[in-house]
């Protein structure tokens, strides 16, 4: 299965600023997903980022707040823009290959 390197692992950010999270995959994958996990809650899908097309956002998430880039089959970024304390969460990238889903190690974001 794919191995994903996700950076940064954690960050503390000032409100109103932006943070870009990167995921590098060790193999080419078409399907990539970005999730948010708020404290004590399940993983919530933010968007599906397939290479060669615009990211598809789930209800409650918009491109202006969570812009995503997917320049090639091994890399993607998620930006959390104009942050507020409510954005404090763990953010995870995931890829799907025929043998299943693999996750990055997550980015723990705290907005102060």
């Amino acid at each position, binding site marked *: 299965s794919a191995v*994903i390197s996700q950076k940064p692992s954690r960050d503390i950010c000032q409100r109103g600023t932006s943070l870009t999270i990167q995921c590098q995959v060790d193999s080419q994958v078409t399907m990539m997903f970005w999730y948010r996990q708020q404290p004590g809650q399940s993983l919530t899908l933010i968007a*599906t980022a397939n290479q060669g097309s615009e990211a598809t956002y789930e209800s409650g998430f918009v491109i202006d707040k969570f812009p995503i880039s997917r320049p090639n089959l091994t890399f993607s970024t998620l930006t959390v823009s104009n942050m507020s304390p409510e954005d404090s969460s763990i953010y995870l990238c995931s890829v799907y290959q025929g043998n299943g889903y693999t996750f990055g190690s997550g980015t723990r974001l705290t907005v102060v």
Partner: protein
Amino acid sequence: DQQVKQNSPSLSVQEGRISILNCDYTNSMFDYFLWYKKYPAEGPTFLISISSIKDKNEDGRFTVFLNKSAKHLSLHIVPSQPGDSAVYFCAARAMDSNYQLIWGAGTKLIIKP
């Protein structure tokens, strides 16, 4: 509307005994179910899955049971080991869902020595 529910936020089990984690779902279009384990500061790691055409899948100490009529699945861990202490997530995928997973809220399993 929670389509996948894990009603037990936590579960404590004696080492060596059986751990049973439960998951209920509401969407009859789900046809594939997965269990993931998550340690703090790590991403979820895949444990075991089951297709809706089966009612049981076994992999070593882990067995998943699916009861489609009850829309219920469970993960059995036998025997439980200290390293099994983690948060366990149930996830489901519907047909024609573009491979998107719907997740439960997780159950924190604590294995007592």
